[in-house]
């Protein structure tokens, strides 16, 4: 094969495809899309990739979609949704939607405005936020660590205490027995998050929900980036979902407006998915809303 100029040009043009340099359809490289134009949270991820140092970005890159891809819906027809309602009640708080901004340490790593921008964006999207250091706009304490530590925190805390980091049914039961107000199914814990082959939270949720049997509310985090992901968690027994990474993408690229946009996108996606699966409110969602697949 002889190399013609045209050949070489084509090869060059194919390079970026091979490098996956252009993640957004039709966006010029380097351009930061106006925040209102983002159509899903993954676009915010691509934008974060453009503003963050690669190493910083690697810490918050998207997780695998495979666990969500093994769950499909069983959409039911003709459910009047004019009074569509996503709200849920949790520890005496009425949530606008079953989505909570999850805890992250040191938000200033991603945006100079850090925590202030995070809270501002969440509030603009009518979303409560749990902060790592405590405080935040959701009145619960989230504990992650050993049981002795949990007992101490619970004894000392006036607010409801959630046991975070549950991945097994027996631990969920133990949390109920030790008086946890709720649990957070999560694999984001030091040592575990980096563990190769650790189970996806959405995959272990059904067994945990069975073990808890509705005695305390279950929250979950881990890779939730689309409204349909949230609907799946609700169907499998979670009361609400903690979202972190997609909001960090929004925060890094845009500050508060990015956090707000990503939250609103996920709320809209959830709302549309609920409508089209025939579930006009959260109470109507159940196990039979989804179908689990082996592969």
């Amino acid at each position, binding site marked *: 094969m002889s190399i013609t100029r045209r050949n070489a*040009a*084509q090869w*060059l*043009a*194919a*390079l*970026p*495809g091979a*490098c996956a*340099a*252009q993640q*957004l*359809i*039709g*966006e*010029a*490289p*380097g351009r930061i899309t106006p925040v209102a*134009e983002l*159509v*899903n949270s993954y676009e915010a991820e691509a934008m974060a990739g453009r503003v963050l*140092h690669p190493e910083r970005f690697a810490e918050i890159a998207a997780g695998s979609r495979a666990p*969500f*891809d*093994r*769950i*499909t*819906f*069983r*959409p*039911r*027809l*003709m*459910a*009047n*949704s*004019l*009074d*569509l*309602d*996503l709200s849920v009640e949790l520890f005496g708080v009425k949530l*606008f*939607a079953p989505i909570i901004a999850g805890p992250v340490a040191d938000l200033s790593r991603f945006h100079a405005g850090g925590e202030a921008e995070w809270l501002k964006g969440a509030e603009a999207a009518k979303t409560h936020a749990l902060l790592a250091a405590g405080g935040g706009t959701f009145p619960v304490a989230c504990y992650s660590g050993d049981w002795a530590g949990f007992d101490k925190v619970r004894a000392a805390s006036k607010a409801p205490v959630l046991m975070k980091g549950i991945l097994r049914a027996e631990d969920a039961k133990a949390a109920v027995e030790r008086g946890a107000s709720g649990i957070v199914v999560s694999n984001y814990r030091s040592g575990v998050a980096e563990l190769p082959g650790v189970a996806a939270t959405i995959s272990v949720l059904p067994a945990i929900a069975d073990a808890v049997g509705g005695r305390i509310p279950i929250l979950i985090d881990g890779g939730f980036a*689309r409204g*349909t992901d949230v609907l*799946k968690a609700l169907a499998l027994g979670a009361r609400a979902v903690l979202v972190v990474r997609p909001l960090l993408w929004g925060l890094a690229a845009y500050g508060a407006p990015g956090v707000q946009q990503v939250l*609103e996108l996920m709320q*809209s*996606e*959830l*709302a*549309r*998915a609920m*409508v*089209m*699966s025939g579930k006009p409110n959260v109470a109507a969602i159940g196990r039979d809303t989804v*179908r689990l*697949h*082996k*592969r």
Partner: protein
Amino acid sequence: MLQYRYELNRRRALHALAAFAAGSPLRAFQQDPFRDHSRIPALTEMRTALDFEAVAFVRLPRPVFDYTAYGSDSEFTLRRNRQAFDWVELTPHAQPVRTPDTAAQLLGTKLNYPILLSPTAGHLQLHPDGEPATYAGATAAAATPMIVSNVSSVPFEKIAGASRGPIWFQLYPRNDSESNHETLERVQGAGAQAVVVTVDQQASFFERILHSRHLNPGAPGGVRRRTSSRGAPRNPYRVPEDRLFYEWKLFDEWRKIVKVPLIVKGVLTPEDAKICLEHGIDAVYVSNHGARSLDYAPSSLEVLPDIVDAVGGRVPVIFDSGIRRGADILKALALGASAVGLGRIARWGLAAYGAEGVQRALEIMQAELKLAMMAAGCASLKAVNRSLVRTDFP
């Protein structure tokens, strides 16, 4: 660290080169399927129905092409619709047949092949001849029934006058019973031989409209979300309200107005199929709207067998979403469909070559079905049953 960031090394140079190339107009070369011979093939060169898609691609403005090609949200279901056919294998009889009989009877319409044209919106954007050409092409292809969409770019009466083959109508119900009444009376008066009511796709969103943001920036419609025709919705989640009022009892009202067979399109669960029967529906149309409704809905094919079982032969089951080859049709029939619908195939055919393209694309599908039946050893559609396939749905 800092040093690494600012030093020019081989890796960074390659990165920069890649970024340069990404911004270069040469990238468009990659997207042209005909770059090596810059010639649009003739109609007679089309070998499979898939070939029409590439021709449509070069003929259409990119946003128009995308509109036909895309699915909703992440397009999980769009991919799954095709994947699903790989989960079904044919197990042919030892004895091939020479002249399979493909004729069928469906709701009083005589079919030469168990194939319909699924209803799809606005054909004028695909070809200046619009729906009348689609209809003429369908009729020319062994009188394939065309289901005219409620949102066609040419009025039903005008399309109906363009040819003589079987023609059905598809309704998107409105929250206004007088308007529904008027539409249903009008199309039945103009010769609609069946009415399909589409009740899925209440609130879909297409992320790929992104394309229009760089191809024609500032174009109306750009990346704006679809909003309700009746102003701001009552819900605070920005979900358009037009299609949120659906309720089963409305079918009892429509049942009275529709004198021809009445079909529900968008069924994906056995439970809903049974409810259809309770409301006197004449056929259940299993479809996920070509993956343009709920993202992460199952492929239509994987839910077909259970729905067929629930219906238990009381009414016919029509199937669409994802069919591209004759063997795909045979698989759907083997799993219990009485007939299948083709959506995008007709659109690619129309966009590529007008009425003749529709005709040819359909004839290819018909010929492929016939070949598949010959190879599988099915003398007629009656011989096509579940024993003809092995399924391995995940």
